[in-house]
Protein backbone atom coordinates (compact mmCIF):
# COMPACT_ATOMS: atom_id res chain seq x y z
CA UNK A 1 0.00 0.00 0.00
CA UNK A 2 1.47 3.37 -1.02
CA UNK A 3 1.53 6.33 1.39
CA UNK A 4 -1.18 8.09 -0.62
CA UNK A 5 -3.49 5.09 -0.52
CA UNK A 6 -2.87 4.67 3.22
CA UNK A 7 -3.66 8.36 3.79
CA UNK A 8 -6.86 8.12 1.73
CA UNK A 9 -7.99 5.04 3.68
CA UNK A 10 -7.40 6.90 6.95
CA UNK A 11 -9.43 9.91 5.74
CA UNK A 12 -12.14 7.55 4.50
CA UNK A 13 -12.55 5.80 7.86
CA UNK A 14 -15.15 8.27 9.30
CA UNK A 15 -17.27 7.71 6.16
CA UNK A 16 -16.96 3.92 6.38
CA UNK A 17 -20.15 3.10 8.24
CA UNK A 18 -20.61 -0.43 6.90
CA UNK A 19 -17.25 -1.86 7.97
CA UNK A 20 -15.80 -2.29 4.47
CA UNK A 21 -12.16 -3.41 4.41
CA UNK A 22 -10.52 -0.38 2.80
CA UNK A 23 -7.93 -1.03 0.09
CA UNK A 24 -6.83 0.27 -3.32
CA UNK A 25 -9.67 -1.47 -5.18
CA UNK A 26 -12.42 -0.19 -2.86
CA UNK A 27 -15.13 1.66 -4.83
CA UNK A 28 -15.69 4.74 -2.68
CA UNK A 29 -19.34 5.27 -3.52
CA UNK A 30 -20.77 1.77 -4.08
CA UNK A 31 -18.69 -0.31 -1.61
CA UNK A 32 -19.20 2.17 1.21
CA UNK A 33 -22.80 2.84 0.13
CA UNK A 34 -22.43 6.63 0.41
CA UNK A 35 -24.34 9.18 -1.65
CA UNK A 36 -22.94 11.73 -4.09
CA UNK A 37 -23.02 14.61 -1.58
CA UNK A 38 -21.11 12.56 1.00
CA UNK A 39 -18.49 11.67 -1.62
CA UNK A 40 -18.01 15.40 -2.27
CA UNK A 41 -17.72 16.06 1.47
CA UNK A 42 -15.07 13.33 1.74
CA UNK A 43 -13.14 14.84 -1.18
CA UNK A 44 -13.06 18.18 0.67
CA UNK A 45 -11.23 16.43 3.52
CA UNK A 46 -8.77 14.98 0.98
CA UNK A 47 -8.22 18.43 -0.56
CA UNK A 48 -7.43 19.94 2.82
CA UNK A 49 -5.17 17.08 3.89
CA UNK A 50 -3.02 17.32 0.74
CA UNK A 51 -3.57 21.08 0.24
CA UNK A 52 -4.65 20.59 -3.38
CA UNK A 53 -7.71 21.35 -5.46
CA UNK A 54 -9.66 18.39 -6.89
CA UNK A 55 -12.32 19.89 -9.19
CA UNK A 56 -15.69 18.12 -9.17
CA UNK A 57 -15.32 17.42 -12.91
CA UNK A 58 -12.48 15.00 -12.13
CA UNK A 59 -14.67 12.95 -9.77
CA UNK A 60 -16.91 11.45 -12.45
CA UNK A 61 -14.00 9.27 -13.56
CA UNK A 62 -12.69 8.60 -10.07
CA UNK A 63 -14.29 5.52 -8.56
CA UNK A 64 -11.76 3.60 -6.48
CA UNK A 65 -9.23 4.55 -3.82
CA UNK A 66 -6.48 3.85 -6.38
CA UNK A 67 -8.13 6.21 -8.92
CA UNK A 68 -8.21 8.94 -6.30
CA UNK A 69 -4.58 8.27 -5.35
CA UNK A 70 -3.55 8.81 -9.00
CA UNK A 71 -5.44 12.14 -9.07
CA UNK A 72 -3.76 13.25 -5.83
CA UNK A 73 -0.29 12.23 -6.94
CA UNK A 74 -0.66 14.04 -10.28
CA UNK A 75 -1.79 17.18 -8.47
CA UNK A 76 0.75 17.17 -5.64
CA UNK A 77 3.57 16.75 -8.19
CA UNK A 78 2.19 19.62 -10.26
CA UNK A 79 2.16 21.83 -7.20
Amino acid at each position, binding site marked *: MTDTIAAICKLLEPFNTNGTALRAETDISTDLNID*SVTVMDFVMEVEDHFD*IEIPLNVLSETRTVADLARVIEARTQKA
Partner: protein
Amino acid sequence: MVDLLDKHRPIADRIARMLAMGVNAVGVTNEKVMSPTRAIIDGRETILAGTNNYMGITFDPDCVAAGQEAMATFGTGTTGSRIANGSYALHRELEAELARFLGRKHCIVFTTGYQANLGMMSGLAGPRDTIFLDADSHSSIYDGCTLSGAKLVRFRHNDATDLDKRLARSEGEEGGRLVVLEGIYSMLGDRAPLADFIEVKRRHGFQLLADEAHSFGVLGPHGRGLADEAGLEADVDFVVGTFSKSVGAIGGFGAGDHPLFEVLRYAMRPYMFTASSSPVSIATSLAAVRKLAAEPWRRQKLRENSARLHAGFKALGLDLGCDEVSPVIAVKCADEPSAIAMWNALLAAGVYVNIAVPPGTPNKLCLLRCSVSAAHTDADIDRIIALFGEVVAAGHSRRAAS
Protein backbone atom coordinates in the same frame (compact mmCIF):
# COMPACT_ATOMS: atom_id res chain seq x y z
CA MET B 1 -28.64 -6.95 -21.90
CA VAL B 2 -28.32 -4.55 -18.99
CA ASP B 3 -31.67 -3.08 -17.99
CA LEU B 4 -31.12 0.68 -17.81
CA LEU B 5 -33.58 1.10 -14.95
CA ASP B 6 -31.86 -1.50 -12.76
CA LYS B 7 -29.58 1.13 -11.27
CA HIS B 8 -32.61 2.88 -9.76
CA ARG B 9 -33.76 -0.14 -7.73
CA PRO B 10 -32.36 1.28 -4.46
CA ILE B 11 -34.48 4.42 -5.00
CA ALA B 12 -37.56 2.31 -5.75
CA ASP B 13 -36.94 0.32 -2.55
CA ARG B 14 -36.58 3.52 -0.51
CA ILE B 15 -39.88 4.89 -1.89
CA ALA B 16 -41.55 1.54 -1.13
CA ARG B 17 -40.33 1.69 2.50
CA MET B 18 -41.66 5.25 2.77
CA LEU B 19 -45.05 4.22 1.33
CA ALA B 20 -45.27 1.31 3.76
CA MET B 21 -45.22 3.86 6.59
CA GLY B 22 -48.19 5.85 5.28
CA VAL B 23 -48.82 8.45 2.59
CA ASN B 24 -46.19 9.05 -0.08
CA ALA B 25 -44.27 11.86 1.59
CA VAL B 26 -42.69 12.92 -1.69
CA GLY B 27 -45.78 12.55 -3.88
CA VAL B 28 -48.68 14.29 -2.17
CA THR B 29 -51.72 15.22 -4.29
CA ASN B 30 -53.55 18.46 -3.63
CA GLU B 31 -57.07 17.48 -4.65
CA LYS B 32 -58.26 21.05 -4.42
CA VAL B 33 -56.43 24.29 -3.59
CA MET B 34 -58.60 26.89 -1.88
CA SER B 35 -56.11 29.61 -1.04
CA PRO B 36 -52.34 30.20 -0.66
CA THR B 37 -52.55 28.45 2.72
CA ARG B 38 -55.32 25.83 2.34
CA ALA B 39 -55.77 22.71 0.23
CA ILE B 40 -57.69 19.45 0.36
CA ILE B 41 -55.27 16.54 0.77
CA ASP B 42 -56.66 13.02 1.29
CA GLY B 43 -60.11 14.57 1.57
CA ARG B 44 -59.04 16.77 4.52
CA GLU B 45 -58.67 20.53 4.70
CA THR B 46 -54.97 21.07 5.34
CA ILE B 47 -52.87 24.10 6.31
CA LEU B 48 -50.13 24.51 3.71
CA ALA B 49 -46.83 25.26 5.42
CA GLY B 50 -44.38 23.86 2.89
CA THR B 51 -45.12 25.50 -0.45
CA ASN B 52 -42.66 28.46 -0.58
CA ASN B 53 -45.67 30.72 -1.18
CA TYR B 54 -43.89 33.46 0.75
CA MET B 55 -46.02 36.43 -0.32
CA GLY B 56 -49.28 34.45 -0.37
CA ILE B 57 -49.97 35.97 -3.75
CA THR B 58 -51.22 32.96 -5.77
CA PHE B 59 -54.92 33.84 -5.44
CA ASP B 60 -54.50 37.62 -5.55
CA PRO B 61 -57.50 38.93 -7.57
CA ASP B 62 -55.35 41.37 -9.60
CA CYS B 63 -52.83 38.66 -10.51
CA VAL B 64 -55.62 36.23 -11.43
CA ALA B 65 -57.32 38.91 -13.56
CA ALA B 66 -54.02 39.74 -15.30
CA GLY B 67 -53.55 36.06 -16.14
CA GLN B 68 -57.07 35.69 -17.48
CA GLU B 69 -56.73 38.76 -19.66
CA ALA B 70 -53.34 37.58 -21.00
CA MET B 71 -54.76 34.18 -21.90
CA ALA B 72 -57.68 35.81 -23.73
CA THR B 73 -55.37 38.26 -25.51
CA PHE B 74 -52.26 36.18 -26.26
CA GLY B 75 -53.54 32.59 -26.13
CA THR B 76 -52.62 29.55 -24.06
CA GLY B 77 -48.96 29.11 -25.04
CA THR B 78 -46.09 30.64 -26.99
CA THR B 79 -45.33 27.43 -28.97
CA GLY B 80 -41.64 28.14 -29.23
CA SER B 81 -38.52 29.91 -28.05
CA ARG B 82 -38.03 33.65 -28.21
CA ILE B 83 -35.12 33.52 -30.63
CA ALA B 84 -37.15 31.35 -33.03
CA ASN B 85 -40.71 32.65 -32.61
CA GLY B 86 -40.03 36.12 -31.27
CA SER B 87 -40.97 37.64 -27.95
CA TYR B 88 -44.40 38.67 -26.79
CA ALA B 89 -44.81 42.24 -25.61
CA LEU B 90 -45.43 40.80 -22.13
CA HIS B 91 -41.96 39.21 -21.95
CA ARG B 92 -40.34 42.57 -22.68
CA GLU B 93 -42.61 44.34 -20.22
CA LEU B 94 -41.79 41.88 -17.44
CA GLU B 95 -38.04 42.20 -18.08
CA ALA B 96 -38.27 45.98 -17.90
CA GLU B 97 -40.36 45.84 -14.72
CA LEU B 98 -37.94 43.43 -13.04
CA ALA B 99 -34.91 45.51 -14.04
CA ARG B 100 -36.63 48.53 -12.48
CA PHE B 101 -37.53 46.58 -9.32
CA LEU B 102 -33.98 45.25 -8.96
CA GLY B 103 -32.28 48.52 -9.89
CA ARG B 104 -30.36 46.70 -12.64
CA LYS B 105 -29.69 47.69 -16.24
CA HIS B 106 -30.56 44.31 -17.76
CA CYS B 107 -32.86 41.40 -17.06
CA ILE B 108 -33.59 38.19 -18.96
CA VAL B 109 -36.54 35.95 -18.06
CA PHE B 110 -36.48 32.16 -18.29
CA THR B 111 -39.22 29.55 -18.48
CA THR B 112 -38.42 28.09 -15.04
CA GLY B 113 -36.18 28.99 -12.12
CA TYR B 114 -34.21 25.79 -12.73
CA GLN B 115 -33.46 26.96 -16.26
CA ALA B 116 -32.48 30.41 -15.00
CA ASN B 117 -29.59 28.79 -13.12
CA LEU B 118 -28.75 26.40 -15.95
CA GLY B 119 -28.71 29.35 -18.35
CA MET B 120 -26.77 31.81 -16.22
CA MET B 121 -24.08 29.35 -15.09
CA SER B 122 -23.53 27.99 -18.61
CA GLY B 123 -23.77 31.41 -20.25
CA LEU B 124 -21.30 33.07 -17.89
CA ALA B 125 -18.72 30.30 -17.50
CA GLY B 126 -17.14 28.10 -20.15
CA PRO B 127 -14.63 25.25 -20.20
CA ARG B 128 -11.62 27.53 -19.54
CA ASP B 129 -13.23 29.19 -16.51
CA THR B 130 -13.64 28.08 -12.89
CA ILE B 131 -16.85 28.21 -10.88
CA PHE B 132 -16.55 28.25 -7.10
CA LEU B 133 -19.84 27.09 -5.63
CA ASP B 134 -21.07 26.82 -2.06
CA ALA B 135 -21.26 23.18 -0.93
CA ASP B 136 -24.98 23.57 -0.08
CA SER B 137 -25.93 25.04 -3.47
CA HIS B 138 -29.26 24.05 -5.02
CA SER B 139 -29.19 21.26 -7.62
CA SER B 140 -29.98 23.74 -10.39
CA ILE B 141 -26.66 25.47 -9.63
CA TYR B 142 -24.76 22.17 -9.67
CA ASP B 143 -26.46 21.17 -12.94
CA GLY B 144 -25.81 24.58 -14.50
CA CYS B 145 -22.16 24.30 -13.50
CA THR B 146 -21.92 20.87 -15.13
CA LEU B 147 -23.57 22.21 -18.29
CA SER B 148 -21.03 25.05 -18.46
CA GLY B 149 -18.08 22.67 -18.76
CA ALA B 150 -16.16 24.93 -16.35
CA LYS B 151 -13.79 23.62 -13.72
CA LEU B 152 -15.90 23.24 -10.56
CA VAL B 153 -14.54 23.96 -7.11
CA ARG B 154 -16.84 23.45 -4.13
CA PHE B 155 -16.16 25.48 -0.97
CA ARG B 156 -17.42 24.82 2.56
CA HIS B 157 -20.90 26.17 3.18
CA ASN B 158 -20.99 29.87 4.10
CA ASP B 159 -17.24 29.82 4.77
CA ALA B 160 -15.51 32.84 3.19
CA THR B 161 -12.13 31.74 4.62
CA ASP B 162 -12.46 28.40 2.85
CA LEU B 163 -13.29 30.18 -0.42
CA ASP B 164 -10.28 32.44 0.11
CA LYS B 165 -8.03 29.39 0.48
CA ARG B 166 -9.38 27.77 -2.67
CA LEU B 167 -9.03 30.98 -4.69
CA ALA B 168 -5.41 31.21 -3.54
CA ARG B 169 -4.78 27.60 -4.67
CA SER B 170 -6.05 28.37 -8.16
CA GLU B 171 -4.26 31.73 -8.48
CA GLY B 172 -2.56 32.19 -11.86
CA GLU B 173 -4.74 29.67 -13.70
CA GLU B 174 -6.24 30.70 -17.03
CA GLY B 175 -9.84 31.80 -17.46
CA GLY B 176 -12.36 33.78 -15.46
CA ARG B 177 -13.66 33.00 -11.98
CA LEU B 178 -17.32 32.96 -10.97
CA VAL B 179 -18.39 32.60 -7.35
CA VAL B 180 -21.98 31.48 -6.67
CA LEU B 181 -23.87 32.10 -3.41
CA GLU B 182 -27.51 31.91 -2.34
CA GLY B 183 -29.45 34.57 -0.46
CA ILE B 184 -31.38 32.10 1.70
CA TYR B 185 -30.47 28.41 1.55
CA SER B 186 -33.60 26.40 0.89
CA MET B 187 -33.10 23.57 3.37
CA LEU B 188 -31.93 25.25 6.60
CA GLY B 189 -33.04 28.84 5.94
CA ASP B 190 -29.62 30.35 6.65
CA ARG B 191 -28.22 33.31 4.69
CA ALA B 192 -24.82 33.73 3.03
CA PRO B 193 -22.52 36.03 5.07
CA LEU B 194 -22.32 38.39 2.12
CA ALA B 195 -20.00 41.02 3.63
CA ASP B 196 -17.36 38.34 4.36
CA PHE B 197 -17.50 37.05 0.79
CA ILE B 198 -17.29 40.55 -0.65
CA GLU B 199 -14.19 41.20 1.42
CA VAL B 200 -12.65 38.12 -0.24
CA LYS B 201 -13.84 39.42 -3.62
CA ARG B 202 -12.03 42.72 -3.12
CA ARG B 203 -8.77 40.86 -2.47
CA HIS B 204 -8.95 38.18 -5.15
CA GLY B 205 -11.10 39.63 -7.92
CA PHE B 206 -13.83 37.44 -9.39
CA GLN B 207 -17.37 37.88 -10.64
CA LEU B 208 -20.11 37.17 -8.10
CA LEU B 209 -23.56 35.72 -8.69
CA ALA B 210 -26.22 35.61 -5.99
CA ASP B 211 -29.17 33.25 -6.35
CA GLU B 212 -31.97 35.06 -4.54
CA ALA B 213 -34.58 32.33 -5.20
CA HIS B 214 -35.78 32.19 -1.59
CA SER B 215 -34.89 35.79 -0.66
CA PHE B 216 -36.36 37.72 -3.62
CA GLY B 217 -39.42 39.59 -2.37
CA VAL B 218 -38.50 38.57 1.16
CA LEU B 219 -35.30 40.26 2.34
CA GLY B 220 -34.17 43.86 2.25
CA PRO B 221 -35.92 47.22 2.51
CA HIS B 222 -37.03 46.91 -1.16
CA GLY B 223 -37.54 43.14 -1.14
CA ARG B 224 -34.69 42.65 -3.60
CA GLY B 225 -33.03 39.97 -1.52
CA LEU B 226 -29.95 39.40 0.62
CA ALA B 227 -27.75 41.95 -1.19
CA ASP B 228 -30.48 44.57 -0.61
CA GLU B 229 -30.67 43.64 3.08
CA ALA B 230 -26.87 43.82 3.41
CA GLY B 231 -26.62 47.07 1.41
CA LEU B 232 -24.08 45.42 -0.91
CA GLU B 233 -25.89 45.23 -4.25
CA ALA B 234 -23.13 47.11 -6.09
CA ASP B 235 -20.69 44.31 -5.24
CA VAL B 236 -22.92 41.57 -6.66
CA ASP B 237 -22.45 41.27 -10.43
CA PHE B 238 -25.33 38.96 -11.31
CA VAL B 239 -28.63 38.11 -9.65
CA VAL B 240 -30.76 35.04 -10.31
CA GLY B 241 -34.30 34.53 -9.07
CA THR B 242 -37.44 32.53 -9.57
CA PHE B 243 -41.14 33.29 -10.09
CA SER B 244 -42.26 30.11 -8.35
CA LYS B 245 -41.90 31.39 -4.78
CA SER B 246 -42.62 35.03 -3.87
CA VAL B 247 -44.02 35.75 -7.34
CA GLY B 248 -46.47 32.84 -7.24
CA ALA B 249 -46.16 31.85 -10.90
CA ILE B 250 -43.53 29.85 -12.78
CA GLY B 251 -40.36 31.09 -14.45
CA GLY B 252 -37.09 32.70 -13.45
CA PHE B 253 -34.75 35.58 -14.23
CA GLY B 254 -31.13 36.62 -14.46
CA ALA B 255 -30.12 40.26 -14.08
CA GLY B 256 -27.03 42.43 -14.05
CA ASP B 257 -25.42 45.70 -15.12
CA HIS B 258 -22.71 44.29 -17.39
CA PRO B 259 -22.67 46.14 -20.76
CA LEU B 260 -22.54 42.79 -22.62
CA PHE B 261 -25.33 41.19 -20.57
CA GLU B 262 -27.80 41.03 -23.49
CA VAL B 263 -25.43 38.79 -25.47
CA LEU B 264 -26.25 36.01 -23.01
CA ARG B 265 -29.56 35.56 -24.86
CA TYR B 266 -27.51 34.07 -27.70
CA ALA B 267 -25.16 32.06 -25.47
CA MET B 268 -27.49 30.29 -23.03
CA ARG B 269 -28.84 27.01 -24.39
CA PRO B 270 -31.52 26.68 -21.62
CA TYR B 271 -32.88 30.04 -22.84
CA MET B 272 -32.48 29.44 -26.57
CA PHE B 273 -33.77 25.90 -26.97
CA THR B 274 -36.96 25.86 -24.93
CA ALA B 275 -40.36 27.46 -25.34
CA SER B 276 -40.74 30.83 -23.65
CA SER B 277 -43.06 31.22 -20.65
CA SER B 278 -46.79 31.11 -21.25
CA PRO B 279 -48.69 34.41 -21.45
CA VAL B 280 -50.55 33.56 -18.24
CA SER B 281 -47.35 32.98 -16.28
CA ILE B 282 -45.68 36.13 -17.59
CA ALA B 283 -48.74 38.31 -16.96
CA THR B 284 -49.29 37.05 -13.41
CA SER B 285 -45.56 37.48 -12.71
CA LEU B 286 -45.70 41.06 -13.97
CA ALA B 287 -48.69 41.85 -11.77
CA ALA B 288 -47.02 40.18 -8.79
CA VAL B 289 -43.70 42.02 -9.17
CA ARG B 290 -45.63 45.31 -9.21
CA LYS B 291 -47.36 44.22 -6.00
CA LEU B 292 -44.06 43.34 -4.33
CA ALA B 293 -42.99 46.93 -5.01
CA ALA B 294 -46.31 48.55 -4.04
CA GLU B 295 -47.26 46.41 -1.05
CA PRO B 296 -44.38 46.25 1.45
CA TRP B 297 -46.87 45.06 4.11
CA ARG B 298 -46.52 41.58 2.60
CA ARG B 299 -42.80 41.44 3.54
CA GLN B 300 -43.60 42.88 6.96
CA LYS B 301 -46.35 40.33 7.62
CA LEU B 302 -44.08 37.51 6.41
CA ARG B 303 -41.36 38.65 8.84
CA GLU B 304 -43.85 38.75 11.72
CA ASN B 305 -45.19 35.29 10.85
CA SER B 306 -41.69 33.87 10.49
CA ALA B 307 -40.64 35.33 13.85
CA ARG B 308 -43.80 33.93 15.50
CA LEU B 309 -43.21 30.41 14.16
CA HIS B 310 -39.48 30.51 14.93
CA ALA B 311 -40.12 31.66 18.52
CA GLY B 312 -42.88 29.08 18.98
CA PHE B 313 -40.61 26.26 17.83
CA LYS B 314 -37.78 27.52 20.03
CA ALA B 315 -40.12 27.52 23.02
CA LEU B 316 -40.95 23.88 22.27
CA GLY B 317 -37.24 23.12 22.45
CA LEU B 318 -37.05 21.96 18.82
CA ASP B 319 -33.67 21.72 17.13
CA LEU B 320 -33.87 24.22 14.27
CA GLY B 321 -31.92 24.55 11.02
CA CYS B 322 -30.57 27.98 11.93
CA ASP B 323 -30.86 30.70 14.58
CA GLU B 324 -31.65 33.53 12.17
CA VAL B 325 -35.31 34.10 11.46
CA SER B 326 -36.24 33.47 7.84
CA PRO B 327 -39.40 32.13 6.18
CA VAL B 328 -37.66 28.75 5.84
CA ILE B 329 -37.81 27.06 9.24
CA ALA B 330 -36.47 23.52 9.38
CA VAL B 331 -36.82 21.15 12.32
CA LYS B 332 -34.10 18.52 12.66
CA CYS B 333 -35.23 14.92 13.25
CA ALA B 334 -33.27 12.00 14.68
CA ASP B 335 -33.44 9.81 11.56
CA GLU B 336 -35.40 9.08 8.39
CA PRO B 337 -38.00 6.67 9.89
CA SER B 338 -38.87 9.11 12.69
CA ALA B 339 -39.03 12.02 10.20
CA ILE B 340 -41.44 10.03 8.00
CA ALA B 341 -43.57 9.01 10.99
CA MET B 342 -43.81 12.61 12.26
CA TRP B 343 -44.49 13.94 8.77
CA ASN B 344 -47.37 11.46 8.44
CA ALA B 345 -48.75 12.43 11.84
CA LEU B 346 -48.58 16.14 10.99
CA LEU B 347 -50.40 15.59 7.69
CA ALA B 348 -53.08 13.47 9.38
CA ALA B 349 -53.54 16.30 11.90
CA GLY B 350 -53.99 18.80 9.07
CA VAL B 351 -50.67 20.52 8.34
CA TYR B 352 -48.54 20.00 5.27
CA VAL B 353 -44.79 20.61 5.59
CA ASN B 354 -41.88 19.27 3.52
CA ILE B 355 -39.90 16.23 4.45
CA ALA B 356 -36.26 16.51 3.40
CA VAL B 357 -33.76 13.65 3.62
CA PRO B 358 -30.21 12.98 2.35
CA PRO B 359 -28.76 13.49 -0.22
CA GLY B 360 -31.17 16.42 -0.64
CA THR B 361 -30.01 17.92 2.65
CA PRO B 362 -26.65 19.08 4.00
CA ASN B 363 -24.79 17.06 6.65
CA LYS B 364 -27.07 14.01 6.26
CA LEU B 365 -29.87 15.82 8.09
CA CYS B 366 -33.47 14.60 8.14
CA LEU B 367 -35.73 17.63 8.26
CA LEU B 368 -39.34 18.66 8.62
CA ARG B 369 -39.15 21.89 6.67
CA CYS B 370 -41.73 24.64 7.00
CA SER B 371 -42.07 27.64 4.73
CA VAL B 372 -44.03 30.57 6.10
CA SER B 373 -46.43 32.70 4.06
CA ALA B 374 -47.57 36.30 4.48
CA ALA B 375 -51.06 34.82 4.02
CA HIS B 376 -50.84 32.69 7.18
CA THR B 377 -52.94 34.11 10.00
CA ASP B 378 -51.70 34.24 13.59
CA ALA B 379 -54.14 31.39 14.27
CA ASP B 380 -52.55 29.32 11.46
CA ILE B 381 -49.07 29.85 12.90
CA ASP B 382 -50.27 28.97 16.40
CA ARG B 383 -51.97 25.82 15.07
CA ILE B 384 -48.72 24.75 13.34
CA ILE B 385 -46.80 25.33 16.59
CA ALA B 386 -49.37 23.37 18.58
CA LEU B 387 -49.24 20.42 16.16
CA PHE B 388 -45.43 20.37 16.22
CA GLY B 389 -45.74 20.40 20.01
CA GLU B 390 -48.02 17.35 19.95
CA VAL B 391 -46.20 15.41 17.25
CA VAL B 392 -42.54 16.42 17.30
CA ALA B 393 -41.72 17.77 20.78
CA ALA B 394 -43.80 15.03 22.47
CA GLY B 395 -42.06 12.43 20.29
CA HIS B 396 -38.66 13.75 21.35
CA SER B 397 -39.44 13.54 25.06
CA ARG B 398 -40.92 10.04 24.64
CA ARG B 399 -37.68 8.92 22.98
CA ALA B 400 -35.58 10.63 25.65
CA ALA B 401 -37.59 8.88 28.39
CA SER B 402 -37.34 5.41 26.82
